[in-house]
């Protein structure tokens, strides 16, 4: 079923995954320079789901994300220079340096925002869906989150409301088994299948291999069509694995919270290498085509760092602006004030 993905679509998917991989590798390499003075949650090993979301959703569908935000932003097509500049705290950052790594936004591609409190942005995607329904704009809201977010009350509350109103929203869970150092077994009962729990709440659910890019793409396309056709929300759970430490550029398997064997088994299932191989064997790309795709992404990444380096620091006075909107937003009919 995945072989009917058009070559251009498959290459688009791969390009997004390469962007995430190469950008995150560059961040990891340059983080010790101490110019990116903020926490960073890298998604190395988890490139698939964010990229498939970017390909499958429309540009104006609204995506909301988490602390592990870079990949989600890049997958949806967010501007790389504005991302790296944000990590540098520069004026050219997507939040002008106010947000840092965990607060990203590029509304020109429908990446509304990422926020740093677990499960915080899930109901916002539901709210976007509520607005989409009322405005009749045909858009779909999408919340990306990890396996720990489903433990928060606001997750269940959000799913319940979305199901109740059959809202056009996707709940996308990247299940990497861990919340910081804590494995699922210490947070959720043995035998729990998150998608089964959610299915019991009355929404359609999908479960899949989060490192199989073409399959993830097909699943997200299907789910988006379902939501867009007013059939209600969809919850998608994809199994994947974070290679590096929870927060920061290093590997931390030496700490003993997970085994080298587990890590190696997942690394052997590298989703980027897998899709590269599939596209070559499908004939979408030859070895030279793949090399040139990687080279052009490398150039994009290098350019993004150049943008960040060249961008000035915002003046300190910039911290003291834009707390409130000055104008009212509702049309008036000769209203009067006191």
């Amino acid at each position: 079923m995945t072989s009917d993905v058009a070559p251009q679509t498959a290459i688009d998917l791969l390009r997004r995954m390469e962007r995430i991989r190469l950008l995150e590798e560059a961040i990891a390499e340059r983080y010790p320079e101490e110019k990116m003075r903020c926490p960073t949650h890298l998604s190395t090993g988890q490139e698939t789901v964010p990229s498939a979301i970017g390909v499958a959703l429309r540009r104006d569908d609204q995506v909301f994300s988490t602390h592990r935000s870079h990949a989600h932003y890049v997958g949806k097509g967010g501007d790389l220079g504005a991302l790296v500049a944000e990590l540098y705290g520069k004026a050219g950052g997507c939040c002008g340096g106010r947000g840092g790594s965990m607060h990203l936004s590029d509304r020109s591609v429908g990446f509304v925002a990422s926020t740093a409190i677990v499960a915080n942005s899930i109901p916002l995607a539901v709210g976007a869906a509520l607005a989409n329904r009322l405005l009749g704009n045909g858009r779909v809201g999408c919340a990306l989150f990890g396996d720990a977010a489903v433990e928060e009350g606001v997750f269940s509350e959000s799913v319940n409301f979305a199901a109740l109103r059959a809202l056009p929203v996707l709940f996308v869970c990247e299940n990497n088994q861990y919340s910081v150092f804590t494995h699922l077994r210490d947070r959720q009962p043995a035998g729990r299948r998150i998608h089964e729990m959610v299915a019991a709440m009355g929404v359609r659910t999908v479960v899949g291999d989060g490192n199989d890019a073409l399959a993830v793409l097909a699943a997200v396309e299907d789910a988006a069509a379902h939501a867009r056709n007013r059939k209600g929300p969809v919850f998608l759970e994809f199994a994947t694995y974070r290679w590096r430490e929870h927060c920061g550029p290093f590997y931390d398997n030496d700490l003993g919270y997970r085994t080298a064997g587990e890590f190696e088994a997942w690394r052997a299932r590298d989703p980027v290498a897998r899709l590269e191989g599939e596209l070559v064997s499908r004939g979408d790309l030859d070895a030279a085509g793949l090399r040139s795709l990687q080279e052009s992404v490398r150039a994009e990444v290098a350019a993004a760092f150049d943008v960040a380096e060249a961008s000035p620091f915002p003046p300190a006075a910039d911290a003291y602006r834009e707390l409130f909107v000055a104008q009212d937003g509702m049309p008036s009919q000769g209203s009067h004030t006191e």
Partner: protein
Amino acid sequence: MTARSITYAAAIHEAIQTAMTLDERVICYGLGVPDPKGVFGTTLGLQEQFGAERVFDMPTSENAMTGVAVGAALAGLRPVVTHQRVDFFLLAMDQLVNSAAKWRYIFRGEMAVPLTIRLVIGRGWGQGPTHSQSLQAWFAHVPGLKVVMPSLAADAKGLLLASIADNNPVVFLEHRWLHNQAGAVPEGDYRVPLGKAAVLREGADVTLVGMSFMTMEALRAAEHLAGRGVTCDVVDLRTIAPLDWDTVLGSVSKTGRLLALDTSWITGSVAGEIVARAATECWEALKCAPQRLGLPDFPVPAGYSLTRGFYPTACDVVRKVEQMLGRELGAEALAIPADEHHDVPGEWFKGPF
């Protein structure tokens, strides 16, 4: 009891360990409590020592797990629950404010909620708007909650042991920039009574009131001012609620000048409350308008250049004192040099974490 030099984080660890040894009704849980980093080292080894029934990790469910702690406390346990940022705990305000704080009162004193909630506050390294808030004023505003903010390592231990022993809900706020500071800490069951401020330094001219990390800035400023012939009382609040008004107002009555320092936004702050009480109760003694220093009323940005100057330092304290006394006291000597990082307390504190 002998004292030796250990860090604030180690002092907290020792307090929990001591409490758990003294009383097997004490339990300890929170995100990451038994993990390899052990909440900045403060819970390392506790699960090995006291077992997984009493020391455990929890689901990412702050609100429910706070309610669970309230229920367990009502049923006879003495929970110590930790959160790595106060910001994460905001999900649990319902259980704290609507249940824990009011239980004793509503049910006519028949039930008690012996509960300690450890919350980490802090700043720096681009943690930004939702990872570096300091919300003691919210907690202090709610009748029925005790609020503790230690500055020194010894007090971190003594106040935490007293908090766990207390039969009321206590919110215990630890500043991340203090975790690495060492000080002489007594061994054993060392308790510091809640509701008592400490006068860390005595003087005649100005009362500096601080809490948590701001007490460190007050001490630096007082040291500098002493060299210029201005002596200060430095009052370390230690407990925010109930606040030790006798000590604070006694000092203000003596010096006639008050500068209250806060780790949080100035509007609606604890410092504002101190200024108000001083103005209403020490009016006759005041030689100049009581003053306060805190954060500007804006969310804390993440960016390096944006946070420069955001947090008041010892330099700002001296500047304020210059205004109060109407003379120059060399505040600039305390300014953070342009080539020094303002967003870390030292080399030990660096992302990622």
